[in-house]
């Protein structure tokens, strides 16, 4: 962050390896103000626990279906590749599509799962499946993964919601049949933070307290007559809102407190601001944060649209990984880049790619995940998974496992049906350092 350090480093580098010295010098010589970074091996060091312990999960959801061939699983030379070129990354042998030059510099921290495969090729159903591990049914609303994680490990910060969703609209993950306090707090625009969270003008704390007190008295009789879960849940949501209003942590939602420099490092896009806000929330101990990026359903002009869409992801994600690492939070925070399905290897007459659940890619980093690797393989043209197929349930089981949940625990819904956090999924243990 500061150039002085690099001059010092060059003079003090006698003891470091030649390779480390050269790479550091190169960065300094190219005038980068931010550069390397860490001495010591780049492996995700093991925390002393026998199993991973991601204390927070940031889930970046690219809604609409991200084309795997153009992003995380390029196939240079294949007929299906189209005009997008492949980039080499900091991880040996791991290639990325050309729109991700900054992520390429962070690939030592991340693992691409390129063997995702599912059978669900319709948006709402596939998004639902990604977030809940279950097929959408008319008879039940399944809890989202974020709700499961809160239920499994509780909150770290009592004043803030355990699950926050940034950006995006449309269908949101819910607490399903879990109690309503596991519901995510949606924030439509990350740049404007949490709205209406302060007392109305002219209402001082004393008056506010008297009003709440009066409300309590008026509710008391009703509450005593209807001592049931839903009434209690309603009260609890009021209490939670008041706790939040009074919390010093309200500032966590305000990204205007970040410097302009930091804002532009994350990118002043909706997604970048979402990533920055996610980092702030992680710093305040919020368990699960989802950042939504819309517009990935590129049926026509796939390549033009990707060149618009991808840079904000490249910027936001690489800033997030680097910043979390610098703050010592990446080791305990799992970052997932996910999408509901891939896009067809064949390019149609509109330069589009269409829905393709058979093979797609996601990315995981931090939270005990081994970086610098690719897990699973698709064939030469990106059509079929040919190694280590990973179902959506397996991905969710991996996330749940990282977060410290038991994937075997059966929870019975109020209607008496048994469910597990990731249905039949098994965690991919090979991904953990």
């Amino acid at each position, binding site marked *: *962050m500061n150039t002085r*350090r*690099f001059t*010092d*480093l060059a*003079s*003090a*580098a006698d*003891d*470091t390896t030649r390779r480390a010295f050269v790479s550091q010098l190169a960065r300094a010589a190219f005038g*980068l103000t*931010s*550069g*390397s*970074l860490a*001495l*010591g091996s780049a*492996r995700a*060091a*093991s*925390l*002393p*626990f*026998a*199993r991973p*312990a991601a204390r927070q999960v940031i889930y970046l959801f690219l809604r609409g279906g991200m084309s795997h061939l153009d992003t995380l699983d390029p196939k240079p030379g294949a007929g299906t590749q189209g005009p997008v070129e492949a980039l080499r990354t900091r991880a040996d042998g791991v290639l990325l599509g050309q729109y991700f030059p*900054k992520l390429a*510099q962070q690939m030592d921290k991340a693992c691409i799962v390129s063997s995702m495969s599912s059978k669900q090729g319709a948006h709402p159903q596939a998004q639902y499946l990604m977030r809940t591990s279950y097929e959408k049914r008319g008879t039940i609303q399944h809890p989202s993964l974020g709700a499961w994680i809160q239920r499994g*490990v*509780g909150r*770290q*910060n009592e*004043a803030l919601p355990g699950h926050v969703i940034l950006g995006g609209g449309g269908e949101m993950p819910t607490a399903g049949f879990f109690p309503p306090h596991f519901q995510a707090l949606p924030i439509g625009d990350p740049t404007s933070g949490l709205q209406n969270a302060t007392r109305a003008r002219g209402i001082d704390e004393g008056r506010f307290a008297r009003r709440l007190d009066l409300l309590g008295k008026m509710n008391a009789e009703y509450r005593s007559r209807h001592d049931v879960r839903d009434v209690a849940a309603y009260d609890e949501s009021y209490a939670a809102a008041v706790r939040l209003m009074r919390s*010093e*942590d309200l500032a966590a939602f305000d990204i205007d407190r970040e410097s302009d420099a930091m804002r*532009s*490092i994350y*990118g*002043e*896009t*909706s997604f*970048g601001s979402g990533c920055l806000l996610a980092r702030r929330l992680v710093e305040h*101990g919020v368990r699960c944060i989802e950042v939504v990026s819309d517009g990935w359903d590129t049926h026509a002009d796939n390549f033009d649209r990707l060149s618009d869409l991808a*840079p*904000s992801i490249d*910027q936001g994600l690489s*800033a997030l990984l*680097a*910043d979390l*690492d*610098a*703050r*010592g939070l990446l080791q305990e925070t799992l970052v997932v880049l996910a999408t509901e399905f891939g896009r067809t290897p064949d390019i149609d007459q509109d330069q589009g790619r269409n829905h393709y659940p058979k093979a797609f890619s996601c990315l995981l980093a931090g939270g005990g995940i081994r970086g610098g690797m690719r897990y699973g393989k698709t064939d030469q043209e990106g059509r079929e998974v040919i190694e280590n197929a990973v179902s959506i349930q397996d991905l969710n089981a991996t996330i749940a496992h990282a977060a*410290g949940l038991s*994937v075997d625990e059966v929870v019975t819904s109020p209607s*008496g049906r048994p469910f597990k956090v990731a*249905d*039949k999924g*098994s965690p991919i*243990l090979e991904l953990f350092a």
Partner: protein
Amino acid sequence: MMILRHLLPFAALLAALPAQDDQKPQGQPEGKPKAEAKPAQEPKDGKEKEAAADKVDFVAQVLPILEKNCVECHKAPYTDADGKKKRPKGGVTLDTRDGIEKGKKGKLVVSTKPDDSMLYHSITLPADDEDRMPPAKKGDPLPQDQLDLIKKWIEQGADFGTWKGAEAKADAKDEAKQDKKAGEDQKKSEDKPKGDSKGKDAGKGGLAMLESGLPMLSEEQFATLRAHFSVEPAAADSALLRVTAFGRESSIDDAAIAALSSASGHIAELVLARTHVTDAAIATIATMPRLVHLDLRGTKVTDDGVVALGAATQLRSLNLYGTSVGDRGIAALSACKNLEQLYVCETPVSAAAVVALQSSIPSARIVFAADLPEPMADADQGNARARRR
């Protein structure tokens, strides 16, 4: 004739069967006396069998037929490998004595009267009758010798012997099926809570070694801690704790840290980021014998505090991001040979000090400058910026 031929091998098998059934639900404890009473009975049973050589034995002869042909659909409700709740077809269960003798649909077997027994009736219906069991879609009619055997068993009084039911056994089988995907399925009852933990890390002696013999914290102790901090187990079912200050940073100062001393031996992770703790608190923290992760981001801790931390030789991860800790403090950490991660971005620590520390703890990863990307090109964020209020 045929029955006799069957009986001989079964007589031998009998000695083993009941004992096995009893062992299964108990699972692992090999050391326990294995249902000593049973083997003593067996010889006697055997003799009785010889005496009444003609008597059909339910467990040895009839039950296998039911298990092979019927029980798949007719057993006590259970959750299958897909997490689906399965109920017995038609409410008929054939895997327990109660199910057969007093099922929901009434007696399936009427002692000595095969023709009044629903069980016998439904397996002897013509193949094209839709009530015939097993259903045409599921399997072939039972062969005549098996029908005769069941008939004979009923005629002889439908004696179940000591058999009560295979509930426990059936459950164990189902769960085993579920487990197969996750890995080995033996010894499950013992390993279950830790589940996947027995991966490659198990040998590293991590949490398990740290907490061996550590008792769980009492409820009162928990309550004391929770008055100031947010507290959770460091891992599922662990006696070790992760203690954080989230949401209460402004109220946590050196005095609050003193309150941690009652649980000092239980704390594995301590997150004090942005709290008011100072160097004075470090003396308490440095003596926590199992503390492996300490987060002091953005606190007022200085070199003096970190020098005091030098005593915490078991520490694996230390976060000093955004503190005023400098080279003197960092130098003192060279005693912490177990240190795996050290975060010193946004501090006055010099590269020289980092290099020096690195050479004394070669295995540590020391993060001293952020690897942040260049800001986004204006063209790429132009539209988005316009949207910003």
